[in-house]
Structure formats: C-alpha cells, structure tokens
C-alpha cells in the first residue's frame, strides 16, 4: 500500500503549479464579477433572460435525456445483440465531435433546407432559431455523458440481487423499480449532473443552429460572448454565476460518488 507515506515534494510542486494555474483565473473572474454591482447587474434584463433561457432549455434537455438515455443505457449494459458495439460507439461520438460540427450537422438535418426540413415545415414545426433548436443542440452534445454514466451504473449492479428479488416473487418491473433503479441511482445522478453542466456550457452548436436572440435562444454562454463585445459588466456577472454553478455541480458529483463508494463498501 503506497499513498500512506508523505508525498514527494516534486509531486506536490507539480500539483501546486497546476492548481494555481486553474484557480488563479477563476479567482480573478470571481473577484471581478462579485463586486457590489453584482446584484443590480444580476437583475438586468439581459442577465435574467439568459438565466431563464439556459434554465428552461437545459431542464428540457435533461428530461429528454433521462427519458431516452436510461433505456438505452440499460440496453447496452444488460444485453448482447448484433450492432451493440456500433451503437455504443455512435452514442459516444458527440463526446469527441467538436460542437460546431454538431451544429452544422443539426442545421443540415433539421433546418428548413435540411433533410427533414420539408416534412417538418409541413407539420408546422420550424426548428432553427427556436428554443427547440437550443434543446436539440444541448441534447446532441450532452446526452452521451449521461448514457455513459448510466451504462456503468447498470453494469456495476450485482445481478444476484436482482435474481434474488425475482425468486422472491417480484415481477421484472417491480425488481427494476425497487432494486435496480435505487442501486443505479447514484450513477444516474452523477451522469445527469455532468450532462447538465455540459448542456449549460454548450456554445458552438447553439450559436450555429439556434442563433442568438435575447430572451429566446440566447443562453448564458451566448450572452457572455455577446456582452464581452459591448458591456463587460453582464459578461462578468454571468461568468461568475457559471463558476459558482459549475463548482456546485462538481461538488454534487463528488458527494454522490463518495456516497456510492460508501454503499459499495458497506
């Protein structure tokens, strides 16, 4: 067992340098953002609109992710079928694909002149420049993070526990609801938090596919970008908000992970 002895100074030095590099800009941002002008700036229409758009679109994205991602993750974790590796790889693709490429792809598919443009227009649905486009951009880039975590969760559960529940007379559905779901829940929550963070930060696909209109499609990140070029104050306030939100989300993930490991060892 290593790691109990005092860590070598050289490792500590590298760790310290990297930590300072990461913390310093963040601290500077918070110092510039969290001034007495923070609250008035937070209450400005541009900032409130951005927060509202980001919150509503990311919550929609999370709901869809949960609804469609959970069965897919379960399928991948529990079943062997032809094309499974292909499906697994495809679902991971957006993690490595640059978001702006995702934006082009979405535009060429769901745009008015896109592949599905004509039928969608006939159905009265106009996707580009709408909050729906923001949701699709977020879904495309963030859902894989949830599916990956959920897949690991469903794989990690001891199948014997489920088998025992089935032997005790539980139906498959009840076994899922009362055994599988609670055991997988910390993983799902971790995946959901990661997906949310990613959706909140989405920029490239959104600006290309959904455009940027205050109160409608201008999310926090787009708003920061737009504000940087005219009025710095709202940009700094929103940046500070993002730092706080990101830190809180990471903390939640850490706590969830810690709880999961406790229960694993129990």
């Amino acid at each position, binding site marked *: 067992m290593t790691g109990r002895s005092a860590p070598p100074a050289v490792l500590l030095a590298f760790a310290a340098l990297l930590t300072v590099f990461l913390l310093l800009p963040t601290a500077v941002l918070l110092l510039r953002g969290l001034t007495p002008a923070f609250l008035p700036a937070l209450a400005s229409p541009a900032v409130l609109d951005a927060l509202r758009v980001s919150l509503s679109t990311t919550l929609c994205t999370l709901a869809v992710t949960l609804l469609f991602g959970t069965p897919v993750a379960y399928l991948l974790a529990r079943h062997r079928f032809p094309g499974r590796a292909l499906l697994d790889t495809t679902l991971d693709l957006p993690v490595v694909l640059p978001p702006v490429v995702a934006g082009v792809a979405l*535009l060429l598919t769901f*745009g*008015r*002149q896109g592949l599905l*443009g004509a039928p969608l227009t006939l159905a009265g649905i*106009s996707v*580009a*420049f709408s909050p729906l486009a923001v949701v699709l951009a977020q879904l495309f880039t963030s859902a894989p993070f949830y599916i990956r975590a959920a897949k690991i969760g469903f794989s990690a559960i001891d199948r014997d526990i489920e088998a025992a529940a089935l032997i005790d007379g539980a139906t498959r559905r009840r076994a899922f609801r009362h055994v599988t779901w609670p055991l997988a829940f910390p993983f799902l929550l971790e995946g959901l938090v990661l997906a949310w963070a990613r959706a909140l930060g989405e920029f490239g696909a959104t*600006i290309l596919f*959904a*455009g*940027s*209109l*205050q109160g*409608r*499609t*201008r999310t926090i990140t787009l708003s920061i*970008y*737009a504000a*940087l*070029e*005219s009025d710095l104050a709202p940009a700094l306030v929103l940046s500070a908000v993002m730092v706080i939100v990101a830190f809180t989300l990471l903390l939640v993930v850490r706590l969830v992970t810690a709880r999961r490991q406790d229960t694993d060892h129990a």
Partner: protein
Amino acid sequence: MPRTLMLAALLAGAAHAEPLTVFAAASLTDAFTELGRAFDARTGHRTTFQFAGSQTLRAQLEGGARADVIASANAAQYDPLVRAGLVEPARTFARNRLILIAPRRSARVQTLADLARPGVRLVLADRSVPVGDYARRMLSAIDASGTYGRDFSARVLRNVVSEEPNVRQVALKVQLGEADAAVVYATDLTPALKGSVRAVALPSRFNQTATYPLGAVRNAGAPNAARQFVQYVLSPDGQRILRKWGFLSPQ
C-alpha cells in the same frame, strides 16, 4: 558577380520580410484576402488575417491581442482604440452600402415592406456589430419618413429570429435558407453567394453608408510592414482590388 548580387538582393529581401498580422472586419474577408496576396507578392511580407466582427477585433485588441494593422467597418469600434492610444488615427479607405438579401428559392420577401409581414424570419447582426448598427439606423430612417408607418421598425424587429456576431454569419443564415431575409453590405453578395441568394432593392434615401477606417497598431510587431500595408490599401492597386469586390472609394 551577378550571382553574388542576386544572392545579396535575396538576402536583403528576406531580411526585410516580416510576418504581418491584420485584424479586419468580416465584410472585408474576400477583398482583403486577395489584397493580402498581392501585397505579399510585391513586398515579400507574409500577411495573415483575422476576420471577425469589428467589435470582436476591438475587444481583442483591448484585451492585449497582438496585431499590426486593424481595419474596422465603422468608426464607433475604431475611435475608442485611438483614444486608448492603441492604434494610429484612422485613414478612411473604403465605403459600403447596405442591401437586403433573401434566399433565391423563397419568394416571401420581395420588397422592403415585406420585412414587417408577420411570420417573416429576419436575421440581423447584433447591435454592437457595425452592420447591425447601420441596419437599425436604416430602420429608424424609415420610421422617420413615415412611408411604411411610424411603427415599421418595431414590427420588423419583432420578426428578428437571431442577432449574429458578424455579417458573414448573417449572410450564411440566408444562404442556408434558414432565414427569409437579412441586412448585409452590398459587398457581401459575393460570387460565391449569388447562386443561392438574391438582392432586394433598398430605397437609396434610407440606405446607410458604412465608412471603413484603417490604421497601424501602436507597438506593432512589424511596424514597417504595417505602414506599407496601410499605404498599399490606399494605393491605386489596393483600391482597384477593393472596387473589384464592390467597395466604394473612400470619397
């Protein structure tokens, strides 16, 4: 002997060749790309461009970005840089006019008045972008004339579906057929765009004239090349290339 001379000339040329960084408004993309090639061929310098909305370029220079020359699409984004001591006073090198563009395949917008029709999807540049500012000035001028009603611009602005970060992004949305109309510069209707986009006439009394200032950045990394580039843009050769791409002469 001639050989030695040639070598000396080459070495001298190489010694004077400088890497030059030019920040230029997005609307200058095609014209300056050609102009830069001609400039490099003549002087031996190596010019690289960064094209973006003028407000982005200004924010980057204020943030400490390294550039040798900046060309903006309006004075509003250039003059603050002069006041901050970051760039030389402006030389006006070109002018531009606005046009309305619409997808060739769509007939929804045929005239200026159509912009206010409910359901029309209009894309503008953000108000901090020069072309976005000029477009809003044009709408105010139309309001003031009363030709289409005093609330014309309010009705038009209700149809805006996106406020883009630079004029080429605005044009792209029409090219892709996602927007029914957009306000861009006359020069943005490039040969590449003409296949998919048509121009809608704007009454000249409402049209705005964009004025392009240019200057060397103070403490430029390549001050000689920067000065030469500014001179070249203003020279008959530089002006000929700008006219070829549809820009109007500075006066």
